[in-house]
């Protein structure tokens, strides 16, 4: 129990601090560690947890709370949530305060431009990890493609796509 909590804390802190470009960039690494290395949850549970948090309000990255809940109960959920938001906020507090006064510094632009393709590669990895587990039949592939196309081309709030997907699921056609 205590070793699991410590493990959740240390890895949570690492994921929080590596999440350059948003929380979801670490999703593939989180899946690999929690599912394949630690066996805290199954691959099916992992994608379920991610999807459930998409239907709930709040910042990205809340899936770690559910992973913590699965691995070590309520303490696990709380430790994971704190590990998710506190370290990155501390970095924002100290580094961000300095950045706000030095945003003309050249290498800031270089870091932003340089990391942009790396962020895309990490989010593509996250997409791959999700789609590989989720899109196991033609109906599901179709729904993913349609949702991706609508979310890409329109400014519709994504919650409507999540709700539409849930309704389609409940109707039994998936």
């Amino acid at each position, binding site marked *: 129990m205590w070793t699991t909590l410590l493990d959740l804390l240390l890895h949570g802190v690492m994921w929080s601090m590596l999440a350059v470009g948003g929380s979801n960039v670490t999703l593939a690494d989180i899946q690999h560690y929690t599912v394949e290395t630690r066996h805290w949850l199954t691959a099916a549970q992992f994608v379920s947890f991610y999807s459930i948090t998409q239907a709930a309000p709040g910042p990205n990255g809340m899936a770690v709370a559910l992973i913590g809940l699965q691995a070590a109960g309520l303490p696990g959920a709380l430790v994971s949530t704190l590990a998710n938001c506190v370290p990155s*906020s501390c970095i924002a507090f100290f580094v961000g305060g300095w950045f706000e006064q030095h945003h003309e510094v050249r290498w800031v*632009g270089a870091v932003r431009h340089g990391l942009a393709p790396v962020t895309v590669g990490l989010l593509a990895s996250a997409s791959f990890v999700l789609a590989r587990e989720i899109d196991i039949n033609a109906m599901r592939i179709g*729904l993913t493609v349609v949702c991706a196309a609508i979310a890409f081309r329109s400014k519709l709030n994504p919650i409507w796509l999540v709700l539409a997907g849930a309704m389609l*699921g409940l109707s039994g056609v998936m």
Partner: protein
Amino acid sequence: MTALTSKPAADTASVPDAPTCFELFHNFAIVGLTGFGGVLPWARRMIVERRGWLSDLEFAELLPLAQLLPGPNVANIATLLGRRYRGAAGSAAAVFGLYLFPTIITILLGYAYQRWSDSPIMHRLLSGLMPAAAGLMIATVLKLVVSLPRNVQSLVFVCMTFAAVGLLTLPLLAVLAVLGPLATWLAWRTPAVRS
């Protein structure tokens, strides 16, 4: 520290009354509670339109910094705004407010999942919810891809990162330790970036 906080204080000149810690907590708590489908648009609406803490331009200037820093963009915005108005206590109040309701709701949903994970209704619900969630992630990737510069360098870094993390499942820390500095150094050498 005094020197650092005095500059942000000057930025608040456009705001009649800098928000208190409780106001930061309260307003970000509402943003967290109502932030379905991504919190950022709701945070922008609260900060710019309802509270007038920042102008549209100020918000647009703050966003790239929040995106560059690790962690959820909206949590970084809460941290930076809280810091600007009330220092460390303001940051803590804003971030705590932002996470309070989402944490409670997510944990309750987690218990509901554990309770009903074997029921046919839960299976059906997830069978539609999951493909939609995967589609949203893919759409995020597509939106970012079109914003990248169209050059070989970008393509190479996207593919290398995807191969390393997505396909080979190499440790994220090691991959970023190599690709992060390399990508930054190459971007630094590109004249267009520096201007």
